[in-house]
């Protein structure tokens, strides 16, 4: 009678509540039918705007598209600069970050990382003849991107250098061109790709030394284990099927604007330091 109906209502409510408690980001993505991803819009070839159709394309976007396909949803790309990556992820504006996101212990406290899918080292680019060895860095003005590990590494290793942080790499490069800074720092592959696309490339050079060994992975909201596992699964499968190699060749292969040999495969052991 009364007790039975109330009991039934309570049981139904509990069932709904427990379902709601188990619904996580992966379920939300599948229900919405769209995977929202943050990617660069001014950093070829990782993420940039293709002038032919004004869509954001690049190495990171290709990986994101593969993950979206494996989840059976559409892909939506939110353009970002390095400083906004974590903020977009933490405030729920995107589900994943595919933006050359370097894995660090500090960042692991705020977000989760997938298995690394790219490796690089911090390098510099300067006008020809200016920068020959790392010892000079302490006396120079160095441009960096806000919110990147490159900026933090230079600050830690070269405390006497003057660091000016810009919103994104093209800003920093414009500062380099006008002489506002004497060198800028970024991941080696990014600098190689940047140099290949600059109209006055003959005036610049990338000295051969690096000051770090970094690994980049996909940024996942903290605690979303099912989503993390789905992403890792897709990445491993891409490597096994040879798709990861194909994606790399498309942007860094011998026919691309800035060829670089592929030294790191998904699943390779990570060097430390």
């Amino acid at each position, binding site marked *: 009678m009364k007790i039975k109906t109330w009991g039934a209502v309570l049981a139904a409510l509990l069932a709904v509540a427990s379902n709601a408690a188990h619904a996580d980001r992966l379920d939300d993505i599948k229900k919405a039918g769209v995977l929202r991803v943050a990617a660069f*819009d*001014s950093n070829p070839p990782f993420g*940039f*705007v293709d*002038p*032919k*159709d*004004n*869509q954001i394309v690049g190495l990171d976007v290709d990986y994101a598209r593969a993950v979206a396909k494996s989840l059976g949803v559409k892909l939506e790309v*939110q*353009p*970002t*600069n390095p400083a*906004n990556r974590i*903020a*977009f992820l*933490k*405030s*729920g*504006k995107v589900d994943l970050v595919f933006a050359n996101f370097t894995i660090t212990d500090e960042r692991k406290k705020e977000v989760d990382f997938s298995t690394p899918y790219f490796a690089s080292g911090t390098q510099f680019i300067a006008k020809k003849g200016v920068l020959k060895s790392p010892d000079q860095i302490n006396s120079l003005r160095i441009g960096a991107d806000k919110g990147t590990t490159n900026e933090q590494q230079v600050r830690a290793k070269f405390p006497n250098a003057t660091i000016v942080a810009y*919103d*994104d790499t*093209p*800003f920093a*490069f*414009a500062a380099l061109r006008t002489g506002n800074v004497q060198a800028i720092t970024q991941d080696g592959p990014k600098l190689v790709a940047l140099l290949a696309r*600059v*109209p006055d490339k003959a005036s610049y050079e990338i000295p051969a030394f690096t000051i770090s060994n970094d690994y980049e992975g996909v940024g996942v909201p903290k605690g979303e284990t099912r989503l993390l596992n789905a992403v890792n699964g897709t990445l491993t499968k891409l490597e096994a099927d040879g798709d990861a190699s194909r994606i790399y060749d498309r942007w860094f292969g011998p026919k691309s604007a800035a060829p670089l040999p592929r030294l790191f495969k998904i699943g390779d052991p990570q060097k430390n330091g």
Partner: protein
Amino acid sequence: MNEVDWLASLRYLLLGAFPSGPLGGVALTLALSVASAVLAVIIGLGGGIALAMTRGVAQILLTALVAFFRAIPVLMLIFWTFFLMPILLHVNVPGLATVVCALALIGGAYLSHSVHAGIVSIGDGQWQAAMSLGLTRWQALREVVLPQAVRVMMPSFVNQWVSLIKDTSLAYIVGVPEFTFLANQLNNRLMVYPAQIFLFVGFVYLMLCGALQGLAHVVLSPAMHRRKARL
């Protein structure tokens, strides 16, 4: 460097990636401006009337609130609504809405101040005459004081809307693909035409703001003349 397709770039700046993507560029700037303006007017009228009609603690709190929103830089408020509000309130708000929210709050605060000043500028005589005719305070406000106050405040409304159009450019800092953001993206890609691109951007904003002021002048001046003629 490849040949630059200026026409396609222009279309991108005006509309963004629409329809094969979200609306962007000048179209989005206009949408942001209109949405923020409408909300700001609502907040401004409500706040101004509240400032005029309340007394004591409520009025002091309201004055402090309005003063706070007039003191904070627009950029900082966009940081707050964009980065912090979703974390604090556990609500996922799309980027556009947070920018509209920030602009509407600041615009609303300025308009509250103007509306309040406008209401206060309508002399005591009007209030007393209305109430001696048996109208309540609220009826006096609605039928007698507010219509006159609005006519006094219109220039400051128009100024605030012009400010709003300019402030939508700040959405660029948080990745909203409005006009300034897309122009910057284009500049990053082309690298060698910064002066031309930013001059063009400035020119378009000049046209938008100038058009708004011209429209306001055309609509408001005859009303002003009619009012003077009737006196």
